[in-house]
């Protein structure tokens, strides 16, 4: 029985730690905002907030799914490729199959966009299910399984699109801040916030979440406690895939086109957000709020460096330092030292 107790105990402990982690992350975010504002006063503006949130929208969707996967003790390298193939497939359906081109705009674009959104989520779900089959049925380790779907999805995205963006119907007002003087959120970002909040509640308030932590902490113990590990992991990867598909649709809305190169390296941004947010790649540890703020930090750095006129190459260095610091902070914490 102790095996089924263990995850619960750990969960309580990590809840306490995560609270702490969030306050550290928020302090980092505020400190960054102050530094960048000193470097470029225009940084402190509604417009900049809008820019950061627009960037945040696509990665936080990838990162939300990645949080589930990482907490379950796995990794999903295919989310960037899934984003690309979902966006491209969705654009292809809207433009080639349904026959809407870039001249369809405003509210006229809503019906095809609705179809496109469903196609994107469906495509992502399909990739997620393929990942799940590779991992749970063929027993391929997640790193390798999702590495291969990453290659396949990026490749298919190029094949479907001939390597070129596919333009289609769009309403750019969905992705623009609702009011440029006082409201940096766009309708698309509000949609993302709702989805990510729902996934967060699902992770932290449901039995599904509890089982995810249990599997990530100790999958043998979880199995002994009666959890169907294979079925649960199938759900986790399917959900991560569907979220990546939705991210693909978000990027479509942003570009007005499905672009095959829009997913390249995005999985690393997502993993960076999760790790900065305090999740452990060993599994069993992580909070959705950490991931959300982690992704915000990533794009605050990106916008800040552009605004401050710092050479773009420095962004990678700054992000690398943040990741190293986040992981170091995690391992140096007394509770984790005992492991």
């Amino acid at each position: 029985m102790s095996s089924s107790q263990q995850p619960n105990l750990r969960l309580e402990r990590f809840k306490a730690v995560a609270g702490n982690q969030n306050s550290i992350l928020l302090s980092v975010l505020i400190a960054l905002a102050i530094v960048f504002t000193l470097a470029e006063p225009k940084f402190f503006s509604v417009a900049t907030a809008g820019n950061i949130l627009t960037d945040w929208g696509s990665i936080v969707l990838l990162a939300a799914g990645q949080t589930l996967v990482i907490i379950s003790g796995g990794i999903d390298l295919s989310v960037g490729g899934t984003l690309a193939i979902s966006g491209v497939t969705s654009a292809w359906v809207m433009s080639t199959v349904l026959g809407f081109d870039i001249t369809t705009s405003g509210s006229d674009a809503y019906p095809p966009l609705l179809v496109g959104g469903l196609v994107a989520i469906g495509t992502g779900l399909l990739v997620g299910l393929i990942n799940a089959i590779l991992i749970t049925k063929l027993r391929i380790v997640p790193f390798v399984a999702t590495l291969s779907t990453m290659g396949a999805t990026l490749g298919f995205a190029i094949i479907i699109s001939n390597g070129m963006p596919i333009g289609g119907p769009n309403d750019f007002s969905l992705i623009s801040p609702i009011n440029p003087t006082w409201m940096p959120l766009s309708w698309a970002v509000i949609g993302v916030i709702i989805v990510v909040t729902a996934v967060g509640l699902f992770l932290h308030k449901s039995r599904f979440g509890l089982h995810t932590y249990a599997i990530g902490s100790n999958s043998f113990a979880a199995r002994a406690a009666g959890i169907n590990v294979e079925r649960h992991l199938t759900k986790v990867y399917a959900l991560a895939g569907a979220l990546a598909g939705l991210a693909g649709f978000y990027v479509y809305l942003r570009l007005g086109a499905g672009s095959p190169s829009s997913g390249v390296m995005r999985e690393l941004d997502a993993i960076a957000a999760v790790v900065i947010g305090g999740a452990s790649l060993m599994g069993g540890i992580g909070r959705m709020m950490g991931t959300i703020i982690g992704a915000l930090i990533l794009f605050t750095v990106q916008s800040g460096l552009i605004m401050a006129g710092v050479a773009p190459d420095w962004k990678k260095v700054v992000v690398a330092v943040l990741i190293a610091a986040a992981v170091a902070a995690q391992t140096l914490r007394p509770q984790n030292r005992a492991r």
Partner: protein
Amino acid sequence: MKKNYFKKAVALAGAAAFAIGLAGCAAEEEAVVAPTTGDTAVVAEDLTIAFVMGAESDPFFQAMKLGAEEEAAAQGVTLIWQGDPSNYSPETQIPIVDAVLAQQPDGLVLIPTDPTALQASVAKAVAAGIAVANVDTRVGDLSDVLTFITGDNEDGGAKAAEAIANAIGYTDGETYEVVIGLTSATATTNVARKEGFESTIAANYPGINIVDVAYSESNPEKAATNVNNWLTKYPDLDGIFAIDGTNASGAAAALESKGLVGQVALVGYDAYPDNVAKIEAGIFTALIAQDPAAEARLAIQTLVDYLRNGTAPANAEVVIPNVTLDANTSAADLVKYTYVAN
């Protein structure tokens, strides 16, 4: 048994397709070549041309592929099209060249991803009796290379500068703010276009200040991010030079979402169908286009001419100029220069 049937069916279908393909080639060869050379021995010889490009994912090479396939079919030669799916790098390209050379083609069109690293591959091919052409980029020492065909990227950059100056109504004595969206600091095409752009600005339009540059790493979403932040930082921005197709897509989307179409001049590069459509919509002030298909056609033509008739090209280096596409470009030219998607 079932499996065997299936295999047989596949094999038969494959063989049939191959035979039809061969027949097609043979017919074309006779039609095109026999009357001009009158040499049946040459006609019977089935030439194979290998084409090793940079990265399959790049639309530029997709357009090039169509040109290569078209010309190979017209000349009745077999085309081996190879290259890494997405990595533009010598590390991935050299083994691909080795594998292709092992197939003993008669000619090799190579787009070297590095001028120095691929020099040995060219020497290896020539030592094996394979004629080599370079397209788009070149190896450092061209003495082993039959012909080098390229688009003029520096000239393209200069044309972009002219287009921006036109669009913002440049007047001497006034100052203007312009930014450049790049893909990376080192991509040779980016560097050449930027140089052409900067030198034309410096020479003819001293009032235009290039206030910033940023990199998109081949990701249009990052290109949009760069432009979003610039529009916040430089509220009076006059123009954007988006140096390639990726940056063009991202910059166009950023202007649309900020409602600044027509207020900020946008000159892009690469005639993706989606970008060309945005000329008509007024989102692009102008689009500079290359003609990758023409480069590929000319390379194959030159190699085949040399292999069949021994005629070396008149010029060892051929530069195919870039063109400016804008609202005044005829519909026929827009179609001609659009990177075709098949």
